[in-house]
């Protein structure tokens, strides 16, 4: 493979600084096939024997091999030796972000461990206090030791909550963290006051346990999230490792990384390579697959001077280009820029729990204030104390713990169904979805052409063989489709000569007869045929015609009908011709008023923006803008890396069944969260009322808090348990 070979350029002076970190001389390789202990031994063992390599450490979880060398160590042999062992290795450019992630993870572990140690020891002291030590000379001493152990929790463990409150306040919002922080602050002040006066209860045990449980629940969700989406994190937007640029002084083409390209450079592409920048064609003509931009699988025939955009792929032959725009100035760069602004326009999603947290915080503080005002003139100290107790008791902490758990369970369930969800929020947003918008090519259809009809139905064997021989090396999607179709049941030996590629087909002599394969009119001149017709001529006589089209996925019709039954409106947006779009829509019974053909990325964006509650399903760069604007976006397997990167959900199986499972899972998540909300609020409101009336003894409160948390945790785990027993929908239909 060309791509793998070009990775071996890693030691060239132009490439080395991009991949090798200068301080430690380390390179990270992605080794997607590393799976077991055997791989581990083979990979590390073979790489470590290479000269100059100091260490090779494979991370089986993330499938990353970190190779440490010296300043002059060659890293290309690493790729070669792994290739011989049967593993494809790709150097990673993102060493910086890996380092950043590692640091963040370490801090997370530190917070969790320190908080656990402190909370555990405070709890031990608290138990002895509840058991009777609070009536002895130990009470005050225990209180101060607890406070000393509580300080790391408050100042280090709870930092994420302080930060989250600050970030939410900046956008004038409150989250579920607001009541948590309120309880934390009030509880600390209250306990400290009681400690100083030597009377009343302290809450260091409940507060530190609360912080620990919250941190643990969130760390768990983070862990699941990372495990699920790590394979997608390393996808770069446009994967071009190297490009050949004309060097005038050396009069030859030099291989450089695309980052080094500048406007005015002349580059050459071979068949199958992608343009790394916007460029004008210098060669007389070339076939370019611009599916990335247009969504149309049929290659475009470009002529000299025509502009092609980065990401387009050359089909067949070689072609020279003159670079006109690179980086941010290229069409792709502009699209990325637009993508970012579209994303920020979409705004911060406020989850149900955070919304409730906001109202709850305001409500509790208001009640506390009113209570203090009402009783200020009778017994101000008692009023203040009870108001503080209310703030503390009314903290919906159980909810704050149960929600990340519910989301983690849902994410795991999704993964079993072949859905990779990058952000738990998407699950909640699914509830709002009213309009489901599909891209056509590669989403509702397979994305590549197939022969679906032949006229006459059976060709003679010599014609059959001629078509195969003429098309077997073709890179044109129609050529590939013909070769695949006619390869079956065939004696493939034959003599081919005088082969030529023409503007709209191929020609050549097979076994002494001249043949020509080009586009033709449909059989009875029917111009409304949505298929592309190709004819085969033998000695200038038409022998037969073949209809090619990009067929609709077999499950698409059922999916569309199911969505319509669920009350969603289904739309179809495509860059393809209106005629084809209408035909596909008819096949799938999508109303024609919901169909838009010949869409540019901006048209799709506008169409999505016009609707509310949108779910966009797509696969190409031309969908990314619309996907960013939609409430939830789903990328289909086999699509462009770009759409995987920008989508919220990725269907990892090659069918659309996951879509229905996704909607059902979203519904289930939402109802679990609602159930938790109900239980939690009932508990908090009744507890708060009793606290205001002075009925709740602090000991009872300390017992009730963990009980409510555990109830919710168990409820949450139970509500996702049925998923395990249900066979995954997608697997079933795959079989």
């Amino acid at each position, binding site marked *: 493979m060309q791509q793998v070979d070009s990775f071996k350029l890693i030691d060239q002076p132009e490439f080395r600084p991009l991949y090798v970190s200068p301080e430690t001389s380390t390179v990270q390789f992605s080794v997607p096939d590393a799976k077991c*202990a055997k791989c581990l*031994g083979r990979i590390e063992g073979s790489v470590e024997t290479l000269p100059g390599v*100091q260490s090779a450490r494979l991370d*089986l*979880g993330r499938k990353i091999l970190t190779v*440490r060398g010296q300043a002059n160590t060659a890293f290309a042999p690493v790729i070669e030796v792994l290739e011989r062992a049967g593993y494809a290795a790709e150097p990673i450019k993102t060493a910086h972000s890996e380092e950043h992630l590692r640091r963040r993870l370490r801090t997370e572990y*530190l917070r969790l*461990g320190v908080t656990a*140690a402190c909370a555990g020891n405070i709890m031990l002291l608290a138990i002895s206090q509840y058991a009777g030590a609070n009536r*002895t000379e130990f009470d005050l001493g225990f209180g101060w030791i607890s406070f000393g152990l509580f300080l790391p929790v408050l100042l280090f463990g709870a930092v994420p909550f302080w930060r989250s409150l600050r970030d939410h306040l900046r956008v004038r919002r409150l989250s579920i963290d607001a009541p948590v922080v309120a309880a934390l602050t009030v509880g600390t002040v209250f306990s400290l006051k009681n400690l100083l006066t030597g009377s009343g209860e302290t809450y260091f045990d409940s507060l530190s346990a609360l912080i620990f449980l919250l941190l643990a629940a969130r760390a768990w969700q983070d862990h699941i999230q990372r495990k699920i989406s790590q394979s997608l994190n390393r996808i770069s937007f446009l994967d071009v490792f190297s490009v050949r640029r004309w060097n005038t002084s050396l009069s030859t083409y030099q291989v450089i990384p695309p980052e080094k390209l500048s406007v005015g450079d002349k580059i050459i592409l071979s068949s199958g390579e992608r343009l790394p920048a916007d460029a004008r064609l210098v060669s007389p003509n070339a076939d370019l697959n611009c599916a990335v931009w247009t969504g149309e699988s049929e290659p475009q025939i470009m002529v000299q001077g025509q502009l092609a955009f980065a990401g387009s792929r050359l089909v067949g032959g070689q072609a020279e280009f003159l670079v006109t725009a690179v980086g941010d100035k290229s069409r792709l760069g502009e699209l990325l820029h637009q993508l970012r602004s579209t994303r920020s326009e979409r705004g911060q999603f406020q989850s149900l729990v955070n919304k409730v947290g906001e109202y709850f915080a305001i409500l509790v503080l208001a009640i506390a204030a009113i209570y203090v005002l009402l009783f200020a003139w009778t017994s101000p100290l008692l009023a203040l104390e009870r108001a503080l107790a209310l703030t503390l008791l009314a903290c919906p902490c159980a909810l704050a713990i149960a929600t990340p758990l519910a989301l983690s369970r849902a994410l795991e369930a999704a993964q079993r169904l072949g859905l990779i969800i990058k952000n738990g929020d998407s699950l909640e947003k699914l509830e709002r979805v009213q309009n489901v918008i599909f891209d056509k090519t590669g989403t509702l259809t397979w994305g590549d052409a197939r022969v679906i009809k032949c006229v006459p139905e059976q060709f003679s064997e010599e014609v059959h063989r001629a078509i195969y021989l003429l098309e077997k090396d073709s890179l044109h999607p129609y050529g590939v489709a013909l070769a695949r179709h006619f390869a079956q049941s065939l004696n493939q030996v034959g003599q081919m000569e005088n082969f030529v590629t023409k503007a709209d087909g191929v020609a050549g002599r097979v076994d002494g007869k001249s043949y020509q394969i080009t586009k033709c009119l449909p059989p009875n001149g029917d111009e409304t045929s949505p298929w592309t017709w190709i004819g085969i001529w033998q000695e200038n006589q038409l022998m037969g015609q073949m209809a090619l089209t990009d067929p609709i996925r077999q499950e698409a019709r059922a999916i569309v009908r199911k969505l319509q039954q669920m009350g969603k409106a289904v739309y179809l947006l495509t860059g393809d011709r209106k005629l084809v779009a209408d035909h596909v829509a008819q096949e799938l019974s999508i109303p024609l008023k919901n169909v838009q053909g010949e869409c540019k990325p901006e048209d799709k964006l506008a169409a999505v923006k016009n609707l509310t509650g949108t779910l966009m399903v797509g696969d190409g760069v031309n969908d990314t803008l619309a996907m960013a604007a939609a409430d939830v976006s789903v990328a289909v397997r086999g699509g462009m890396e770009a759409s995987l990167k920008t989508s919220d959900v990725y269907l990892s199986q090659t069918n659309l069944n996951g879509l229905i499972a996704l909607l059902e899972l979203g519904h289930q998540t939402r109802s679990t969260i609602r159930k938790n909300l109900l239980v939690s609020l009932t508990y908090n409101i009744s507890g708060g009322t009793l606290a205001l009336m002075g009925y709740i003894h602090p000991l009872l409160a300390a017992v009730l808090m963990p009980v409510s948390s555990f109830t919710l945790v168990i409820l949450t785990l139970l509500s996702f348990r049925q998923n395990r027993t249900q066979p995954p929908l997608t697997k079933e239909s795959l079989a």
Partner: protein
Amino acid sequence: MSVLWLMITFTLVLVTTFVAGYIWAVRHGQFDDLVTPAHRILLDDDELQTTNENQSKKGSHS
């Protein structure tokens, strides 16, 4: 009952030691990779040797 104070002091020293040990472990990357070590133990002896040699050569890393 003053023996309790001795025990509490002892406990606090123990807690500090363990937390310090934990912090050291996290900072030195002991928790960076939670999957591979479980597999590394399954390696055959000859494969393990090359790994061990290099580990001692490498020394401590940040």
